C-alpha cells in the first residue's frame, strides 16, 4: 500500500508567498513530461502497490490532455482508489476536466486562497473570485463529487470581516474538503522581501490563532471535521493520499524536487528542472538526497506524523509496532503535555488538543530524542 506523488513544476506566474520549485518557462513542459515518463518507468516494480495518486505543483492544470495522458499511462491503476489533481481557477477548462474524467481523476483540488480580489492580487494570484465560482460550478457539472478548496488565512492586512467573507463564500460552494493554511513568509519569496522592507506586516500569533479558531468553529458547525492539523472534510471525504503521509506509510515521489519514502529511505529529487531532464535523458536517477530511517527516527516520525491527525494514534499500536511501552518511554513528556493541556489520552489513543495543535512543533519537539 503506497502513494504516488507527481510534481508538475510549472506556473504562469509564481505566487508571491510560494517557495515550491516552479518555473514560468512553459516551453520545457514537453521535455519535462518525457523525463517524468522515464522516471516513472524506474518505479515499475512498485506500481502494483499504488493506492493513491496525487498530481501536484506548481500548476498541473497547465498540462495538456495528451501530456497528462503520457504520464498517467505509466501508472498501474489496478489498486488506485483516489486520484487527485491540483488545478488553478484560471487554467482549468471544461476540456481539461473532461480529460481528467477520462483518465480516472476522482478528486480535484483547487487553490482559492482568498475570495478578496485585492488580496489575491497582492499575493500574486492570477484569478479572481468570480473565476472560482465559475470553475467550481464547472467542476461539479463535469461530475466531480470530491473537491478540495485551499484557503490561506492571516494574509497581510486581512480583517476579520474579510476572513468571514471568505468562509461564507466557501461554505456557499460547499466543497467536500477544505485545506487551510496560515500564511508563511518563507525565506527568499517576494512576499518575504516585502515584509523585510516593511511594506507588508505579518499577522501576530494572536491574530493568526484567532482567525484559525474562527474558521474551525464555523466549519465544524457545517459538519466539516478537522481530521488533521490543517485539513477539514465532510465525513468519508478525508484525503487518503495525505493520510498515507501522516500515518508514516510509504510513498513514491516523482518529478523535480519531489520527496518520497521507500524501503525505509526518505529521498529527495533533483530540484533544477533542466538538470532533472538531463539526468533522466541519460538514464540516471533523479534522487539527489537519501536518508535512512533507523529505528529511532522511525519512532519519532511515527509520533510526529500521527499526532498531526485529530485522532492521533492508538498507544497499543505503537507498543506492538515498536515493541516498546509508550508510557514507560515517555512518562515525563506525557506528564508535561497532559498537564499543560496540549495532548489528551482517551480510549487508549493519544491525540493533540486544540491548544496542542496551536503549538504542535513544541509538542513534537518533546518526543525528539
Amino acid at each position, binding site marked *: 500500500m503506497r502513494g504516488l*506523488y507527481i*510534481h508538475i513544476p510549472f506556473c504562469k506566474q509564481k505566487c508571491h508567498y510560494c517557495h*515550491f520549485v516552479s518555473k514560468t518557462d512553459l516551453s520545457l513542459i514537453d521535455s519535462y513530461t518525457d523525463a517524468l515518463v522515464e522516471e516513472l518507468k524506474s518505479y515499475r516494480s512498485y506500481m502494483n502497490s499504488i493506492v493513491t495518486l496525487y498530481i*501536484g505543483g506548481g500548476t498541473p492544470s497547465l498540462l495538456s490532455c495528451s501530456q497528462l495522458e503520457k504520464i498517467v499511462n505509466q501508472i498501474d491503476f489496478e489498486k488506485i482508489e483516489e486520484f487527485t489533481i491540483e488545478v488553478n481557477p484560471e487554467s482549468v477548462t471544461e476540456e481539461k476536466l473532461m480529460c481528467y474524467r477520462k483518465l480516472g481523476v476522482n478528486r480535484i483540488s483547487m487553490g482559492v486562497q482568498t475570495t478578496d480580489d485585492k488580496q489575491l492580487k497582492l499575493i500574486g494570484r492570477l484569478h479572481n473570485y468570480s473565476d472560482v465560482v465559475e470553475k467550481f460550478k464547472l467542476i461539479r457539472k463535469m461530475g466531480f463529487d470530491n473537491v478540495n478548496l485551499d484557503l490561506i488565512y492571516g494574509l497581510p492586512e486581512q480583517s476579520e470581516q474579510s476572513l468571514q467573507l471568505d468562509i461564507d463564500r466557501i461554505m456557499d460552494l460547499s466543497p467536500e474538503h477544505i485545506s487551510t*493554511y*496560515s500564511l*508563511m513568509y518563507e525565506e527568499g519569496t517576494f512576499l518575504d522581501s516585502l515584509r523585510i522592507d516593511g511594506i507588508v506586516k505579518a499577522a501576530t*500569533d*494572536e491574530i*493568526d*490563532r484567532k482567525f484559525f479558531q474562527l474558521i474551525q468553529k464555523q466549519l465544524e458547525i457545517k459538519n466539516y471535521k478537522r481530521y488533521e*492539523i*490543517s485539513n477539514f472534510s465532510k465525513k468519508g471525504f478525508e484525503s487518503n493520499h495525505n493520510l498515507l*503521509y501522516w500515518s508514516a506509510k510509504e*510513498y513514491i*515521489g516523482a518529478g523535480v524536487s*519531489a*520527496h*518520497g*519514502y521507500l524501503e525505509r529511505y*526518505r529521498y*529527495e529529487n533533483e530540484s533544477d528542472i533542466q538538470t532533472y531532464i538531463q539526468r533522466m535523458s541519460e538514464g540516471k536517477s533523479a534522487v539527489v*538526497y537519501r*536518508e535512512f530511517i533507523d529505528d529511532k*527516527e522511525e519512532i*519519532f*516520525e511515527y509520533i*510526529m*506524523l500521527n499526532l*498531526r491527525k485529530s485522532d492521533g494514534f492508538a498507544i497499543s499500536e505503537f507498543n506492538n509496532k515498536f515493541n516498546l511501552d509508550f508510557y514507560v518511554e515517555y512518562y515525563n513528556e506525557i506528564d*508535561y*503535555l497532559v498537564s*499543560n493541556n*496540549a495532548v489528551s489520552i482517551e480510549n487508549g489513543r493519544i491525540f493533540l488538543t486544540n*491548544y496542542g*495543535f*496551536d*503549538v*504542535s*512543533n*513544541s509538542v*513534537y*519537539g518533546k518526543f*525528539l530524542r
Partner: protein
Amino acid sequence: MDKRQNRIRNFSIIAHIDHGKSTLADRLIEETGMLTDREMKDQILDNMDLERERGITIKLQTTQLLYNAADGVEYILNLIDTPGHVDFTYEVSRSLAACEGAVLVVDATQGVEAQTLANVYLADTQGLEIIPVLNKIDLPSARPDEIKHEIEETIGIIADDAPMISAKEGLNIGAVLERIVERVPAPSGDRDKPLKVLIFDSFYDSYKGAVALVRVFDGTIKKGDKIKMMAANKNFEVSEVGLFSPMMIPTKELSAGDVGYVTASIKNVKDCRVGDTITNAQNPTAVAFPGYKKATPMVYCGIYPAEGEHYDDIRDALEKLQLNDAALSFEPETSVALGFGFRCGFLGLLHLEIIQERLDREYDLDLIATSPSVIYRVTKTDGSVLMVQNPTNLPEKTQIDIIEEPIVKADIIVPSEYVGNIMELCQYRRGIMDHMRYIDEKRVILTYDMPLNEVIYDFFDALKSKTRGYGSLDYEFKEYRVSDLVRLDVLINKEVIDAFSMIVHESKAVSRGKQVCDRLKDAIPRQMFLIPIQASIGNKVIARENIKAMRKDVLAKCYGGDISRKKKLLEKQKEGKKKMRQFGNVEVPQSAFLSVLKFDDSK
C-alpha cells in the same frame, strides 16, 4: 660580565589601551627583520584569536629581536609585551619584573590616560628606565608639544626628546630602537653564579607540558640540567630551552640576562607557578625571588556546565587556563539550580568575559555563568566574621550585624565637556568624589571612592558610552566600608533560582529587581504555560513580570511529503534547547544569564 650579556636589552612596552602598543611591537619586529612578510600578520604578538578580535592584549607575549645599532654592534633585544586593560595590571607587573626598561607609548592625540599613569607607577616601583614615545604623530589631531608637556607635568619624566613616531605608518621606528639600546641598562647578573631564574609567565602545550617563560638572572641552564622549582619544592630535568622569535626556537642554553623558555615535561600545572624561582638542583642559589604577591581576584562568579557538559571537562579546562593565567582562581561549589560547578575569581569583568569566551572557543564548553559578585565582609550578631562571595551564602538578615563592601579608589580621566555626565554616573553608582584635578584646560582627572560592586557591573561600558569612548578608568582596592546591602533573589515560576541571586544596595533593589525581571522576560522563550518572574528580598516580592503562554508554534504544511525538512527544523530547535537549562518545567537559555549583566544605556 661577558660581552654577550652587555649586548642584551630586556624591555616591555607599556601604554593605555588603544595607544598603539601592539602595533609598535609589530613594527619593531618588522624593522629588525625577524619575520618574513608572509609570517608577519597584523599584530603578531596578539596571537590569541580573541585578542585580535577585541583588539586588546591579554596574555604576555615575548620575542627576541636582533638589532644592528648605529654604533655597529648587534644587540639582542628581548621584548615582553604587556596587556593594556585595567583588569590586567597584575600581568603588567609580572612582565616588568623581567626587564630593565620600559617603552612608554603615549597617543599624541589623546595624551596621558588613567592606565598610562598606573603603568608608569608600576614601572617606577620596579626601578625601570622609562622611555617615553609619542605615537600617532601622523594624525592631523596630534598635539605633540602639548602632550610632551603633559607627560612632564603629570608623570614627572622628561619627554622633550621623546621619539615622535607613527607605529601604523612605520615612521621613526629606528629612533625607538636606538633609544632602547642607549638608555636601557644591560642586565646585571653573573653566569658563573648558581642558577637563578624567574618564571614570569607560563602556558600549557599539549606536547611539551607546562612551558615556563623565564628571565635568567644568574647562571646558565641547558637541556639535561636537573632543576628545582624552589617554591613548589619539586625537581625536574630540563627537556628543552629556547627563545621566542616569537615562535619557540630551541637553543643550546640560556644564561644570565637572557629571556626565553624552559620545558621539563612538567605535567602538573601547579608545579610551574608564575613567580617561582628555578635553580639548579645540585648547585642551588641561596635566596629565591620573593615571588609575586598572589593576584587577588576582585570579582567572583559561578561557572556551571550547560546541559550535557561534564563537570570534569570544565575542571581540566580551568586548570589549563590557570597555568596561562595566574590570576584566575576557582574552587568547586554546588548550586541548587545548576548542580555542580565552580566558583571562580577574576581580576575584573573583562577578565571574566575573556575566560568564559576562552572556555567556549578553546575548549568548546557550553557554560552558564552566574551574576558576578565581589567579596563582602559580614559580621554576624554573634561576633563572628565571614567573607561572602556567593550571594547564596549570605546569612539570614536576623543573624547579620553589619555588612561591609569593598571600596575602590577610581581614577577617571575624561575630556572636560563630559565631567557632568560622569559625575552623574558616579553618583548614581554610589561614588563619593575625593577630588578633581585639571590635567590641562581640556582634560580632568576625577578621583572617586566607589563601591566595587558598582564598578564591576558594566561601569566601564557606561563610562565609555557616556564619554563617546574618551573616558578612561583605573582603580585599586581601598578599604571595606559598612553599607546597607540586601540579597535580591529571582524566582522563575515561583522557584528561587540561586544562580540569579545578587547582593545589592538597598536603595537599588527595586530598580535592579525590575530590570532583571524585564530582561528575563525577554530572554526566556514562551512555554506552554504562564511563567511568573519575580524579584524578592526575603519573602517580599518587589518586582514581577509574566511570560505569557506560547500562542503558536506550528508549521502545518508538509511540502508535498517533505518530512525531512520538518524533522530538520525540529532537530535544529532541539539543538538550541541543548543550550538551555531546565529549572523545573522552565527552559532558560544561557543568554538569559548574560542578559542580566549587560549595560543598560538608559541608566
